């Protein structure tokens, strides 16, 4: 029961990831792609946490934390770049 609910959740997260991927491909501007990328990263964080849960490996939570940190820094750096003008 619990395992199948988690699998279903992973499936929904996968669809969310695909939606963001479509926006990432369509753009149209670089900023739209960054928003899409940010959403993809956050969905991935949930994904990593689910994998930690199914594999019962707490160490993967550290991976999720570092992932969150990098995503944040990535968006900030991109925003700086955008403000300086293309």
């Amino acid at each position: 029961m619990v395992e199948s609910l988690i699998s279903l959740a992973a499936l929904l997260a996968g669809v969310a990831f695909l939606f963001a991927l479509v926006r990432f491909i369509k753009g149209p501007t670089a900023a739209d792609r960054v928003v899409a990328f940010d959403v993809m990263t956050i969905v991935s964080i949930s994904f990593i946490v689910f994998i930690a849960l199914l594999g019962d490996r707490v160490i993967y939570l550290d991976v999720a934390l570092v992932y969150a940190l990098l995503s944040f820094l990535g968006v900030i750096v991109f925003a700086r770049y955008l403000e300086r003008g293309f």
Partner: protein
Amino acid sequence: MGQGMDIVGALLLLGGTFFLLLGGLGLLRMPDLYNRIQAGTKATTLGTLLSLLGVFLLRPEWGWKLLLIGVFLIFTNPLSSQVLARAAHRSGAHKSPATQVDRLAEDRAEP
């Protein structure tokens, strides 16, 4: 008790991914960058927090680390959206024609 807790946890987790899905859908359907950011941030923040809460009910011993991820997300998620929205506005991002008013552009225009 443990069994019931597990099911509540799994349901919360599923509810969280439902919001992630809504966020993705909003990202796809909204007409311009600002509305997309709105859909993206709010839905993914709540979605991830609910998922983390669900995992906490399934594995209470992971609580501190999950809380750390949650706190980090609550702070950084809105912040990165805001910084991106500001950068986009400063570099003159396209606004949907549905936009009623833009006080920021008005205030920028008159020094």
